[in-house]
């Protein structure tokens, strides 16, 4: 009775066969459709390249001024605005300006894509319990599956470069915005929704005028988390050729350059803090008047 002492595992040959079959099938699939899929992402790639070039080509002082202006408009806080200016200047002063701009561009694009894709998915989840039951485990898998594992098929399909990096980052970073959009809409006061129905709101009017605005604090928290996670993913994405602050970090790991790693890591932190503070301050300000009525 060998199965009592030994695990009844699949024989080595069968396992090999299984892997070969799956890998072969996927390889065939990527050979067949790789070009088509690449072509599908071409507009996105050209936009990404254009945006990155734009950020790098903009004079550094103008760029800092624009970022400070955005901070000011969002947060209306002098302290924060000046802090952002100083932090960006230091990043540039320490020789990381171009990498920072590359990272800024990819993070911006990733966030936009995550919102465009994630918010509607979150809305669909909120509308039906069944959709939620299907999507939730998928999100769990996306968040727990090691990033390297889903980098493999993406690279097999699209090769090394910006687009696979972008897809990897979005897959990793999109769950919070989906989850919190769903949660936010589900938490909207039932009586307010009844009022919307009683006054003859169409489903679209109800979504745009009532559900989304009232879910906004949660959605903003989700977007904030998404940004943070995509910044964290930048280093891993640099392994498949995404330019930016991740590259020098990767280089310093392989070569044990501690200071280089620390500086570039610091620049990522600076970006993270700017994104976080600005988005939170904006969210807070836009929700101010809602006050205690949400209790």
């Amino acid at each position, binding site marked *: 009775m060998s199965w009592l002492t030994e695990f009844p595992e699949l024989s080595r040959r069968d396992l090999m066969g299984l892997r070969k079959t799956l890998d072969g099938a996927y390889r065939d699939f990527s050979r067949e459709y790789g070009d088509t899929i690449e072509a599908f992402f071409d507009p996105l790639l050209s936009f990404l390249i254009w945006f990155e070039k734009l950020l790098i080509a903009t004079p550094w002082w103008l760029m800092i001024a624009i970022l400070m202006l955005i901070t000011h408009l969002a947060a209306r806080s002098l302290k924060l605005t000046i802090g952002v200016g100083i932090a960006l200047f230091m990043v540039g002063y320490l020789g990381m300006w171009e990498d920072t701009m590359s990272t800024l561009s990819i993070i911006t694009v990733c966030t936009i894509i995550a919102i465009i894709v994630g918010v509607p998915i979150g809305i669909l989840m909120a509308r039906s319990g069944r959709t939620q039951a299907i999507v939730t485990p998928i999100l769990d898998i996306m968040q727990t599956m090691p990033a390297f594992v889903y980098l493999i098929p993406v690279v097999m399909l699209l090769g090394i470069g910006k687009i696979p990096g972008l897809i990897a980052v979005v897959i990793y970073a999109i769950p919070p915005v989906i989850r919190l959009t769903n949660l936010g809409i589900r938490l909207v*006061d039932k*009586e307010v929704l009844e009022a919307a129905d009683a006054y*003859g709101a169409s489903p679209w009017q109800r979504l745009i005028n009532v559900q989304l605005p009232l879910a906004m604090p949660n959605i903003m928290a989700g977007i904030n988390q998404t940004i943070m996670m995509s910044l964290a993913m930048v280093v891993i994405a640099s392994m498949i050729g995404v330019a930016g602050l991740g590259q020098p970090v990767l280089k310093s790991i392989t070569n044990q350059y501690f200071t280089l790693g620390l500086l570039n890591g610091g620049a990522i932190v600076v970006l993270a803090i700017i994104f976080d503070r600005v988005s939170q301050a904006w969210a807070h300000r836009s929700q101010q008047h809602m006050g205690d009525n949400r209790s």
Partner: protein
Amino acid sequence: MTQPLISIQGLYKLFGPNPKKHMPLVHDGKNKDEILAETAHTLGLKDINLDIYPGEIFVIMGLSGSGKSTLIRHFNRLIDPTEGNVIVEGEDIMHYDEKRLREFRRKKMSMVFQRFGLLPHYTVLDNVAYGLKNQKVPKAEREEKAKKWLEDVGLAGYEKQYPAQLSGGQQQRVGLARALCTDADILLMDEAFSALDPLIRSEMQDQLIHLQERLHKTIVFITHDLDEALRIGDRIAILRDGELIQLGKPAEILLHPADDYVEKFVRDVNRARALTVETVMQPAVCRISSDNIDEALAQMKQQNADYAFYVEGERYKGLLAMEQLAAASAPESIQELLEESCQAVSPDSPLEEVIPQTLNHSGPLPVVNQQGDLTGQLPRDVLMEVLTGHPTEDQKA
């Protein structure tokens, strides 16, 4: 008789995953607890039949869990019934599709909610204009209208505030203005004043009555407070465990409660304040129009009355007491014998206002309307019986 504006016919609501399947049990007459135990379904409403007429304030009253909030949500189909029909202006709204139903909710019925249901991210003005916004009325037009209604509920100057900045009473005024702003004929008010403190509540009740005098809407008002129901209702329906127990005018419910449940409600009501003279007065039988004392005396004896009302046509002239007449000598005119201490009371006065008068005078009080016509009499013992809830000794005669 006018046509009912809203007619609820044979309405049943069973809550649960598969209500249709268990409806036969309901029709077999099983009660709420039995149905819950057998099927895990909750019986929300059972065979509700109501007619509501244009221009009346119709109050639906019951304790929490009696199904009153469920019932009002059937009027605009926020909840769909398991069985039964809701007919508004002769049309069965159960047959409406989504689009038609939306149109109906926009134009025909508006609703005021217990916890206000205002949009916290909209200004007060935008909240009032919300119904019109759903109807895609141009911005300038709807804001102008909203402004007018805000003024009507006494909130001019608050346009740019947000609901969270307002007190509860003010927020509910916004809710009321929002409901009025769509010009819907029918107003559904779901415990609209229950969340407010007592002073503000009675202020809002006054405001509602006042607005109603001008607007003549048809109002369906839900409450768990009988005093409120008596105060504003033209007719009251009492629900218990999803069943309609009694339906009638406030005085009918106070004076003739249908069962113990209603009686318990009614017991704590201040009848002297809730009832008017008109609801308890009796017909004035002994009317005397002759100037001749002997004739008058004969008439009173025949009707076995100690007091009589001296009238000219329908017009009330004064009260005559048997004692006075009997003691009078012939030449005196009957006019000089009228009881001067006795003042007539108005049919609209609450009973508490006329109590002092009954103390000064042992005979029945004449009830005289605004035109000066005699409409009835209010004997002291009847008043006592109504106020105490027990028949007095001499009443039995």
